[in-house]
């Protein structure tokens, strides 16, 4: 298996004992986490630090120089953070496909904060919105190809032969004429002197050895052996652990606290305060947690102390009566067509505030000194996080290092960096490295939430019941306005709110279409991105509504969609037909069962989902199975596409069934997994994923499953029971009479 017979670790040991080659040792990357001694084989997955003196042809490839006959170490810099979506493995494959190295023999470095690693679609160095593979598809392959060509050129110069005689294979340059070979490391120093070539042609798909083939994840072993270093696992010499409590009412401040009582708890060493939060620091988390309890913090709650859930929904529903909504998207003249329609049909949907609750509670470790700072954190936005620390600490940005850790779940929560800023405000008060760990209660109650929305949809129908016009009235906040103001339209629309509804991000053709937006920011909470963003939000509305129209006209819901697909989206028809076949659509089901379908074109991928539910027990929604047919274009690693759909469906399903963040007196009521319910193994249906072979450009995949499942289930419930649930979460709607509106 190991192509690197030179055993780099053995080389390093030799260097440490001997003398002459000390420069050499400085060139080797340092492992950040807890690697296991594999007898010289580089362990995949453990993150390393950027090696000095390495051949670095671009931002993504590093080859450390090696002695004759020995392999250098190859480090690949990961532009996106790994939070479970498998992007480290995908990125390595993209580079390795052109660089001709075995993915299991390379080392990984998490990208440092830098504009170089910016995700264009997001306007900053960020991992989110299912954009990673889409945006790295070309750049990473180009990086691998450029490095390869430089290594070949260096070898050609060494051998005094034409570069055309050379090829690369398994980490070596080969001379096809003489049979000579050199490890990449052997020519790395010479390659470093060359100018990187531009526009190296990329290999055609027919030559791919890695892309498109199922491959094991590179981070599995360190994760199953407990050696993967998440942000919460960082331990540095002299480090203390703090836990925080921020005012549970947004905008409130610390009024008083019993500092002495907290300091009296064994193990507690400091009580720190900022305007709206306190932090108890101790030798271990539990002592800090006890100290926080003993602190008896009292709050000035401020003006949001009156906010409750009813008020939030009331404001959203009132928004529907706004006389001057913003016309956000349109074609044709939908209001006119609606007014002249033979029949109209209207439905109102309500979706709740949602917490993210990744399994790794929010945390941040940092050491702020006079001359600089180090930050170790799980974040989806390294650059923003670094800049925030620099600003709060009053330090130049360059003096702040940030190590991106493995992330124990992001789901959009770590696109926010306010917790890093908060941690910096505490850490700058103490001389020692401080790791701040939030309790689960803090994680849920001080989250930044997926907004609640109210949507009204009106359709104009002709005499035959066919749709001639559709008008969406959408009431809710604009997350984009805070997170990426430049992304707002000049009229004041958050384009994320058009996803899944408005052309071109819908597979449907509307004769007359209009989307009206009534912006209502949510009082008492900060709203933020959440897995599936606009797709999750919009699909519940449009796919529920499509189903209602089909049932109204007494047409099979799948057939109804087929008729409405725009001729510009033949791939939508492909996934719909595939899922119909695989799910046994139309075949008889036992009593109390029902099937529901959802069709989508979001994140650049097509997907059709059929969920089968069992409501023989009218008080329980039992999901029997889920089938999804996916056409996401070119696939890097089919097994990981399947994994993302499987996981995304389960993630979305649990939330759609159970969850809603509620406020009372300005405070979030849900606090831990006994009130914020996560779907469990015995509630998780089998998810069968059916992939379509495609050579179209790759689409995103991490959020597709999450977006699909709520409407598929709601439609299946309607099929099984005749009840149309238009309010999420579905279980609560089922148990009350209000869910139907």
């Amino acid at each position, binding site marked *: 298996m190991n192509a690197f017979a030179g055993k780099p670790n053995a080389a390093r040991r030799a260097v440490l004992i001997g003398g002459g080659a000390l420069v050499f040792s400085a060139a080797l990357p340092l492992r950040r986490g807890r690697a296991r001694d594999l007898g010289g084989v580089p362990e995949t997955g453990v993150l390393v630090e950027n090696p000095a003196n390495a051949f670095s042809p671009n931002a993504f490839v590093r080859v450390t120089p090696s002695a004759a006959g020995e392999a250098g170490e190859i480090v690949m810099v990961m532009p996106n953070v790994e*939070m*479970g979506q*498998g992007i480290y493995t995908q990125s390595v494959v993209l580079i390795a496909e052109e660089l001709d190295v075995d993915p299991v023999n390379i080392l990984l470095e998490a990208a440092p904060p830098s504009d170089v690693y910016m995700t264009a679609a997001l306007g900053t160095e960020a991992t989110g919105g299912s954009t990673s593979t889409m945006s790295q598809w070309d750049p990473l392959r180009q990086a691998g190809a450029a490095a390869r060509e430089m290594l070949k050129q260096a070898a050609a110069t060494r051998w005094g032969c034409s570069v055309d005689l050379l090829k690369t294979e398994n980490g070596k340059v080969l001379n096809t004429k003489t049979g000579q070979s050199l490890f990449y490391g052997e020519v790395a120093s010479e390659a470093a002197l060359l100018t990187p070539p531009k526009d190296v042609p990329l290999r055609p798909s027919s030559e791919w050895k890695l892309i498109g083939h199922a491959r*094991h*994840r590179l*981070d*599995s*072993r360190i*994760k*199953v*052996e*407990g*050696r*993967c270093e*998440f942000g*919460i696992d960082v*331990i540095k010499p002299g480090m203390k*652990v703090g836990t925080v409590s921020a005012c549970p009412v947004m905008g409130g401040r610390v009024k008083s606290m019993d500092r002495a009582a907290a300091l009296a708890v*064994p*193990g507690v060493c400091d009580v720190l305060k900022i305007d709206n939060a306190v932090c108890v620091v101790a*030798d*271990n*988390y*539990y*002592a800090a947690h006890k100290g926080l309890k003993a602190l008896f913090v009292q709050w000035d709650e401020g003006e949001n102390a009156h906010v409750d859930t009813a008020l939030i929904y009331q404001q959203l529903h009132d928004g529907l009566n706004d006389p001057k909504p913003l016309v956000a998207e349109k074609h044709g003249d939908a209001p006119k067509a609606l007014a002249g329609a033979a029949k109209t049909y209207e439905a109102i949907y309500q979706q709740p505030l949602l917490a993210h*609750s*990744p*399994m*790794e*509670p929010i945390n941040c470790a940092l050491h702020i000194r006079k001359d600089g700072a180090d930050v170790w954190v799980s974040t989806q936005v390294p650059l923003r996080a670094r800049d925030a620390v620099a600003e709060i600490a009053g330090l130049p940005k360059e003096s702040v290092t940030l190590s991106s850790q*493995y*992330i*124990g*779940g*992001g*789901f959009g929560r770590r696109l926010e960096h306010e917790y890093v800023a908060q941690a910096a405000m505490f850490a700058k008060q103490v001389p020692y490295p401080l790791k701040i*760990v939030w*309790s*689960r209660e803090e994680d849920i109650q001080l989250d930044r939430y997926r907004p609640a929305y109210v949507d009204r949809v009106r359709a104009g129908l002709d005499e035959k019941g066919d749709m001639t016009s559709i008008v969406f009235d959408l009431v809710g906040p604009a997350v984009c306005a805070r997170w990426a103001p430049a992304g707002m339209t000049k009229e004041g629309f958050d384009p994320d709110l058009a996803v899944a509804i408005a052309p071109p991000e819908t597979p449907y053709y509307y004769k007359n279409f209009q989307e009206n937006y009534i912006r209502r920011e949510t009082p008492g909470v900060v709203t933020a991105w959440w897995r599936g963003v606009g797709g999750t939000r919009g699909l519940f509305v449009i796919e529920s509504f499509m189903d209602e129209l089909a049932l109204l006209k007494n047409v099979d819901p799948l057939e109804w969609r087929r008729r409405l697909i725009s001729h510009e989206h033949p791939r939508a028809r492909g996934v719909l037909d595939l899922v119909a076949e695989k799910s046994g659509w139309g075949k008889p089901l036992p009593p109390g069962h029902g099937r529901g379908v959802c069709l989508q074109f979001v994140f650049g991928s097509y997907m059709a989902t059929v969920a089968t539910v069992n409501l023989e027990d009218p008080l329980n929604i039992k999901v029997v199975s889920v089938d999804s047919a996916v056409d996401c274009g070119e696939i890097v690693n089919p*097994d*990981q596409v399947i*994994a993302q759909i*499987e*996981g*995304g*469906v*389960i*993630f979305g399903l*649990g939330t759609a069934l159970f969850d809603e963040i509620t406020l009372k007196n300005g405070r979030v009521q849900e606090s*831990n*997994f*006994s009130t914020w319910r*996560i*779907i*469990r*193994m*015995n509630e*998780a249906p*089998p*998810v069968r994923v059916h992939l379509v072979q495609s050579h179209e450009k790759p689409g995103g995949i991490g959020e597709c499953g999450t977006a699909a499942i709520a409407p598929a289930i709601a439609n299946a419930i309607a099929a099984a029971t005749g009840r149309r649930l238009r309010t999420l979460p579905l279980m609560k709607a089922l148990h009350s009479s209000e869910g139907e509106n």
Partner: protein
Amino acid sequence: MIDLRINDQIHSVDVTPDTPLLWVLRDILGMVGTKFGCGIAECGACTVHLDGKAVRACVLPIGAVSGRSVTTIEGVGADPVGKAVQEAWIERDVVQCGYCQPGQIMAATALLKETPHPTDMQIDEALSGNICRCGTYGRIRDAVHAAAERQS
């Protein structure tokens, strides 16, 4: 000082007896493979073995552990069943973010030690206390079966 036997090594720690085992492992002994997820035994991320049984380290006061044998994710690979479970996890590409998986693996290993060939229902019963936010449940079930096959 409280003496603990963890992965067949004796450790002495100086903490108050109410300190949960989880924090002794993570913050005193630096064994961070065992994860903090909820602190109320609702998620299973902190699952370790106490005398061979799967327990939640976040609610297990160290005062109740003295003299008993603890196995963590760092040590479970030394056990043939634990090793088989870890290899099955890799083989089936179970992990996504991986944060819950140490707990899942500890729960699965304890199950297989008692029930070498569990049915789907027995797996569900034993592992439903372990939350996976990434939704890898289907693959976990498959991997438990695969680990059972490896054993036979």
